């Protein structure tokens, strides 16, 4: 490995293209994040998750030359993970079930912080289980964008690269997602 102790993603990509073993470093760097991400997207079974994760990294390696160095590698690998998870649902002919691990309360604050109308609603103590249920009822596109924004803490630009939509559309999707979430929460008296 070259002299850098902590090479950037782009450097690791360049090394991996020259020597396969370096790809292991990229796998190490992203495996936890991607595992968490695909879990949130609904790949709940550990064995399925391992398979999906392996497929993601195989695809990443196979497509390394298509990575545009001017864009974020993180967004690019998330994009592949996102597509692989969707493809996994399709193969199983099932709808993804968002499983939002243990960050519910923080997420509520984050969601509320960007939306004045929803502020009062989210200031209330929200039952996490009810919130998760409401999130599961959202349209896929809305749930995905909320996961990327508030669970993966990604910027609009990165979300735009992952979902392959213009940055302006990401803003619109986030706004609509929060609106729909609010509607889903209303019948639950939150």
């Amino acid at each position, binding site marked *: 490995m070259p002299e850098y102790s902590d090479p950037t993603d782009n450097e690791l990509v360049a090394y991996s293209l020259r020597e*396969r073993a370096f790809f292991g470093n990229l*796998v190490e760097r992203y495996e936890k994040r991607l595992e968490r991400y695909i879990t949130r997207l609904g790949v709940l079974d550990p064995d399925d998750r391992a398979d999906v*994760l392996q497929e993601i990294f*195989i695809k990443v*390696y*196979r497509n390394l030359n298509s990575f*545009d160095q001017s864009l974020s590698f993180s967004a690019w690998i998330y994009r592949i993970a996102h597509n692989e998870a969707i493809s996994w649902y399709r193969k199983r002919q099932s709808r993804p079930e968002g499983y939002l691990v243990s960050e519910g309360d923080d997420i509520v604050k984050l969601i509320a912080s960007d939306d004045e109308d929803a502020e009062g609603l989210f200031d209330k103590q929200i039952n996490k289980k009810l919130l998760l249920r409401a999130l599961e009822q959202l349209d896929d596109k809305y749930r995905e964008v909320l996961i990327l924004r508030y669970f993966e803490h990604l910027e609009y630009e990165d979300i735009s690269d992952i979902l*392959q939509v*213009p940055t302006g559309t990401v803003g619109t999707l986030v706004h609509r997602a929060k609106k729909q979430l609010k509607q889903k929460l209303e019948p639950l008296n939150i």
Partner: protein
Amino acid sequence: MNNKIKESVLERLEREGITPRSRLYWLSYEYAFWGAWLLSVVLGAVALAVLSFTSLYIGYSLYEATHQSFLTFFFDTLPYLWFLAFAGLTIVAYFNLRNTKRGYKYPLYLVVGSSFGFSVVGAVVLHSLGAGFYLDHYMGQHLKSYQSRAEFEAQMWQNPLEGRLLGVLKAPSDDDLKQVLFTDVNNEDWDVTITELRTRDAELLLSGHKVRMLVATTTEELRDGMIACAVFPWILDAAPGVERWRAERKNFIEDVEERRAKLQELVKDIKEVVKDDDSVSPPRPNFSTTTAEDVVRVAEQSPCSNHPVFRRERN
């Protein structure tokens, strides 16, 4: 699980001999989309060039001669096929551009606008070169299911029952050029009286060029007593310019106006004659028992005045 992932991935890469796809592969993939986009834009421009040709030159100048109203004319002559082709190609161009590496970053209006805009620019260039006419003409000749604008116009004008003929002068039938033998595009010969034609129209007919002719009949038998009311040049043998269409429209309006003016003049004359009966000279008809309105009524019964086009115009 996580510790295993790195090992399993590297082991699988090794075992299956998986290597990154070459840069050339991805480059050609990217270029394929750009190429497809460019092709869609170029084909869109071609479709738009033909669309503009067929829309601009839909025989508007003489629509009263071929249709009951502008609305029926409009819907009958609209080039639906080319509208659909252009819309379809714009959609294809949109999807190709969207699928390029950074295509998703561009806003919708930019993606659609650029595809549409480039096609429009291309179409303007092609149109100015007459490409719309030539492609339309070529397709008409080589595709059985395609009807070119020229064929469409010919079909509208070759309709003796409706008082329209398309063809050329074969020969004068008599020495004083009151009647001519006219051959239509179906190779049928017609004896046509040309005494009601304006000088300009008669000259055009006698020039031997292919012409469109408005005709009227005096009898129920079509072939007998056919009278030429107006003659217009056939201009779809080459890409016509807008100026030519405008000139044709002007000519048609003049024709209608001239007939109206003649009729008004006749009415005026008759009224004067009736008022001053003594001044009537022997060769003129005896109007003492006839009103001006009667004479106009008789004049209006002349075959050409009764031609649907002129009657409609008069109303």
